[in-house]
């Protein structure tokens, strides 16, 4: 009997948690945009976006380079090394750009968001905002939410572009694939709405999910050291898994059905 009760309790806790997460999101986003909040959002874009730029660019460069290296050794056996361009660019635009950016963003910016908001809660800063008649949902949560949703697709785009350049660096400059065919076969294959736009849509979805999880886990953290460390871990694990799971669903929807 006990395990049935456990299932029931767990389900209820999860459902209540999801409900609270939705309440937080609606409370934060249903607000008149104010000039003050735009400035706060810009500051947050700096923190989650600009400060993640280095890791995103370095990762993008290396992933593009590795893909060119791996792809070349396989493709050259079939004399198809001209297809290196589309291979690198399609993998980046459709999958690796949004997904790897999502994962890195969860680790770099998501965990920081959780810890920051969790600590604000633990040090009573959120309470004191409430008592100063300032809604923490609008003051703290909303700018961070918007910043994440805006910054991550930008990072994903930069990631893909740098990766393609990295692929060019290794494939063309180093391994001697013809530069013209690298770009022209890529151009013949890659399509704007099918590949680029779908990749951007993916990264917007991931951005919403990752930022939301990160902020909610911080907002809902138990305000102790253990609570915050647990919440940070949960943010990274949960948002990484959600990104990978959602990626499959989105890929199936976008590319699976002809």
């Amino acid at each position, binding site marked *: 009997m006990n395990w049935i009760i456990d299932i029931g309790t767990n389900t209820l806790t999860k459902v209540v948690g999801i409900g609270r997460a939705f309440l937080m999101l609606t409370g934060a986003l249903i607000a008149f945009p104010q000039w003050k909040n735009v400035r706060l959002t810009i500051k947050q874009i700096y923190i989650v976006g600009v400060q993640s730029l280095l890791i995103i660019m370095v990762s993008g460069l290396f992933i593009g380079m590795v893909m060119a290296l791996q792809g070349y050794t396989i493709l050259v056996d079939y004399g198809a090394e001209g297809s290196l361009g589309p291979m690198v660019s399609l993998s980046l635009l459709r999958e690796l750009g949004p997904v790897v950016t999502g994962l890195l963003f969860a680790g770099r910016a998501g965990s920081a968001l959780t810890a920051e908001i969790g600590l604000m809660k633990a040090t*009573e800063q959120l*309470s*004191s905002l409430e008592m100063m008649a300032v809604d923490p949902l609008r003051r703290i949560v909303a700018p961070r939410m918007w910043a994440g949703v805006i910054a991550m697709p930008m990072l994903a785009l930069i990631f893909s572009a740098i990766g393609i350049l990295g692929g060019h660096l290794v494939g063309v400059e180093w391994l001697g694939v013809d530069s013209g065919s690298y770009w022209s076969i890529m151009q013949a294959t890659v399509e704007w709405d099918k590949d680029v736009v779908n990749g951007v849509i993916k990264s917007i979805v991931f951005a919403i999910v990752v930022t939301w999880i990160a902020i909610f886990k911080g907002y809902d953290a138990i305000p102790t050291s253990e609570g915050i460390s647990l919440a940070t871990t949960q943010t990274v694990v949960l948002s990484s898994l959600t990104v990978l799971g959602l990626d499959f669903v989105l890929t199936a929807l976008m590319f699976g059905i002809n």
Partner: protein
Amino acid sequence: MNDHLVEIQNITFSRSERLIYDDISISIPKGKITAIMGPSGIGKTTMLRLIGGQLKPDKGDITFAGKSIPAMSRSTLYQTRKSMSMLFQSGALFTDMSVFDNVAFALREHTQLSESVIKTLVLLKLEAVGLRGAAQLLPSELSGGMARRAALARAIALDPELIMYDEPFAGQDPISMGVLVKLIRSLSEALSVTSIVVTHDVNEVLDIADYVYILANQKVIGHGTAQQIKQSDSPLVQQFLQGQADGPVPFHYPAPTLQAQLLGEDK
């Protein structure tokens, strides 16, 4: 009613099945310093959160200037909160801005004052707590006592009618404690604000409080002026004032008898 700013009427409050208050009533007189005392863990901070509307009582009513706090809509509540402020135990300064910006925060959020007026106001508030020289420091560069004074400057920034002090003396050295006692008293006299001081530091608070409530065992166990409290013949009150380890407020957390537990008979 008219000379009481806050009225707490017969409230019952429990958190996760633990009863915290059982049908208690407290009246906070206007323009006076009221102390709420009691042992740790009795839910004194909870009382302040109830007054601030962050928590809602299970039963009973709380009025602020005649209006019921639990019945307020969200926007009215936020409006009402502008005329009250709370000094948190940890100070709760915003760690990402300087002391100056912390004090200016509420002014910038809630008023349309120009930056130069705000600067004047902030410097005056900081002067009042003796921290004008520390305006550009970050909260992490302040000592505990300074952080609390900075928080106090922030709390009085909007000239509230009610200031709630949550354990203002906890963990302070004697000098900072003396400074804070002096500040609370002078603020109360100069601005004639109503103050609620929640604390367990008996001696400091009996010096400044006009009226005292002592909470224990989910009830108000004694109330009166500082003088009346000192002369109270209630054993509970005397145990608290004199710091006796055991008495009507038990030393032991409720448990089965030691013998029973050690011998494994607790089932």
